[in-house]
């Protein structure tokens, strides 16, 4: 086995023993694994906080004319629920957490390309996120204009106080954090791949993370510019978004959604990548249609930049046919992905461990969200259900489906690698079933409520509307979801108190992260298996089942050359021994 330790002449490779200890070790660490874990823990904390907000809101809506929270508090709750979930959980959990940890591992790199920039990204994220939450402790309370901060509502007259300003500051800081991480991941993928790991041998997870990085570079600068202009409107007397000085309020929507729609895919593509890692491993098959998945990812990313105004159909100042057509087009690569995922499972020998359950849950949930997304891309339907609970149900199916179902699939799948201990299967499965049932109980009634005309973002409704029963069912579902997350946290706690040691490759994985120990050593690899396909570890452990061998045999048959010896490419260069 060739030692990777011979490959990079690393400066600073000696193990960390000489470095600082305790909290200083955490603060000064530039190791992508430590930073990735910090991201993950921080974003899960924000997730739990935002989940509590959601449960509060659902409790408020359980009965008509309820007064558990005031209208103002309710506005703060849904604003911070959306902001925390979208800006501080869904993106950073995948892109800051799992990508940070696993992209270098999957491409055989010792660290991210810019370790210090990586650490800076985390500190900006932590500072920005904390600032946003601390808005609750200002005199006027936290921001209360929705996570989209539409223009006349977010100006200094309608939303006075320091809370909205802290929200703006948080977006600037976390925006820069995302941009830096994006640059870091793209550079890492372009320059630090292991020998033989060509672009078309990269795991789909890494592909998706890189494409997400490109999308971040396209989208986030627009958001940062837009919120800085909003701040100028609030404090410097400019009139960019105000009619009185000749500004255009809808311009905010135009800029925001130019960020906002790519953002939806910034939140979805990483999770597509996680599912694409989990499904083949638990089907014990190579991923079906690898190149198709990669090209689908690229086309989703490209198309997502030119559909932003489908959020603005009802403003009357957008090109309806253009945006409607392009929104429909996105269904094509997404559908292709679905066929590839189903094809991956088709006739595989499936193992229904917790990650696989969550991944299949994602397929079901996201399909439903995707189909209602096609409804909403049609302007006539959108005019009817715009700003109703139909939209709320749609985007929760899409985003909960990806960020939570697929995100938990990834979390359960990689937890042994990250922390060197196994999660309990029984608790994991219980968590899944609570979540799956709770999910439908929460969001199916919301579709109906939307069709019955219940608007979003209202704190109270009258009993005469007839919405009570459906709202109550939805609230019960929200409690089930709360229990599901609680079980997951218990699972983490149990694995912490009574650890079951994780082996290096507990799931018989395919990609390079399973070639190193759990958790990986400092600078990741002591040795690497030879890389001859997109699943080098599988090839190494199962030389009789390698895909590239079949390809070589087929090529040999076609060209009429002798078939290579069985001991050929798979184990030949590496020789005997454990990977």
């Amino acid at each position, binding site marked *: 086995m*060739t030692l*990777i330790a*011979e*490959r*990079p*002449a690393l*400066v*600073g*490779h000696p193990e960390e023993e000489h*470095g*600082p200890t305790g909290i200083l*070790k955490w*603060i*000064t*660490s*530039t*190791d992508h694994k430590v930073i990735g874990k910090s991201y993950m823990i921080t974003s899960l904390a924000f997730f739990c906080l935002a989940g509590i907000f959601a449960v509060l809101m659902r409790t408020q809506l359980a009965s008509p004319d309820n007064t558990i929270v005031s209208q103002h508090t309710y506005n703060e709750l849904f604003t911070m629920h959306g902001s925390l979930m979208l800006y501080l959980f869904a993106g950073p959990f995948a892109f800051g957490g799992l990508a940070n940890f696993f992209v270098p591992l999957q491409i055989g790199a*010792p*660290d991210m390309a810019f*370790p*210090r920039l990586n*650490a*800076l990204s985390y*500190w*900006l994220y*932590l*500072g*920005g996120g904390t*600032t946003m939450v601390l808005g609750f402790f200002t005199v006027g309370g936290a921001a209360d204009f929705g996570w989209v901060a539409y223009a006349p509502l977010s100006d200094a007259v309608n939303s006075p106080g*320091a809370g909205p*300003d802290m929200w*703006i*500051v948080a977006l*600037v*800081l976390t925006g*820069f954090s995302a941009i830096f991480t994006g640059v870091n991941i793209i550079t890492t993928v*372009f*320059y630090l*791949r*292991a*020998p*033989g790991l*060509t672009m*078309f041998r990269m795991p789909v997870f890494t592909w998706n993370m890189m494409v997400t990085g*490109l999308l971040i570079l396209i989208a986030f600068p627009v958001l940062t510019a837009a919120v800085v202009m909003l701040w100028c409107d609030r404090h410097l007397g400019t009139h960019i978004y105000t009619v009185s000085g000749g500004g*255009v309020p*809808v311009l905010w929507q*135009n800029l925001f959604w130019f960020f906002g729609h790519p953002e939806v895919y910034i939140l979805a593509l990483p999770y597509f990548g996680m599912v694409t890692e989990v499904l083949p491993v638990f089907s014990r098959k190579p991923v079906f249609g690898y190149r198709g998945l990669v090209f689908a990812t690229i086309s989703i990313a*490209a198309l997502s*930049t*030119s559909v*932003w105004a489908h959020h603005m159909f009802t403003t009357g100042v*957008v*090109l309806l046919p*253009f945006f409607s057509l*392009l929104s429909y087009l996105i269904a094509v690569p997404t559908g292709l992905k679905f066929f590839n995922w189903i094809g991956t499972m088709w006739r595989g020998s499936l193992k229904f461990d917790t990650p696989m359950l969550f991944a299949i849950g994602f397929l079901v949930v996201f399909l439903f969200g995707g189909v209602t997304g096609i409804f909403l891309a049609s302007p006539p339907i959108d005019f009817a259900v715009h700003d109703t609970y139909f939209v709320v149900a749609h985007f929760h199916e899409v985003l909960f489906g990806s960020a939570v179902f697929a995100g938990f699939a990834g979390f359960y799948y990689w937890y042994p690698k990250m922390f060197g201990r196994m999660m309990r299967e029984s608790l994991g499965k219980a968590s899944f079933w609570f979540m799956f049932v709770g999910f439908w109980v929460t969001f199916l009634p919301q579709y109906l409520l939307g069709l019955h005309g219940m608007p979003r973002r209202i704190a109270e409704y009258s009993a005469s509307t007839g919405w009570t029963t459906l709202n109550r069912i939805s609230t019960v579902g929200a409690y089930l979801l709360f229990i599901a997350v609680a079980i997951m946290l218990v699972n983490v706690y149990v694995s912490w108190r009574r650890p079951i040691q994780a082996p290096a490759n507990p799931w018989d994985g395919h990609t390079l992260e399973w070639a190193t120990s759990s958790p990986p050593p*400092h600078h990741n690899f002591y*040795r690497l*298996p030879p*890389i001859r396909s997109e699943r080098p570890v599988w090839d190494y452990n199962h030389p009789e089942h390698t895909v590239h061998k079949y390809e070589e045999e087929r090529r040999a048959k076609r060209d009429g050359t002798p078939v290579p010896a069985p001991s050929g490419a798979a184990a030949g260069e590496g020789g005997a021994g454990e990977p």
Partner: protein
Amino acid sequence: MKHESYLMLILAVFGAIIAFIFWAVGLNRSYVTMTSGGTVMLAAFCLLGLLPGAYYLWWSRHMTRRAEDDPGATPASDAGSIVGVFPSSSIWPFVLGGAALLVALSLVFGFWTATLGFALAVSALIGVIVESRRGSVH
């Protein structure tokens, strides 16, 4: 390096086409100021793919093939070459992050936090330069 450049250039070509269509379809509309904003952003998206993509394409023709682009390479292929310098620990990202937070908070609390922030940022800058010259802390 070729595939990387093609990826960027595909995005650039898509951006150029879509920006043109968007601009052309949006002409003669009453809300042309709205569509002009979108055209500018789409053109910027095209440039984001074009500039690095063209550079990578140029560079890929002037370099010998890297081991990571060679499908037959083994882990020993680039033995001895230095892939990068990876510090194990550094306090300066934390300081710089705190500095950025203070500067940004001046948007809420007034200019005094920015003065503190800039002082910290300068010290972090000096610190990180000294650290890189000396070789990183292990």
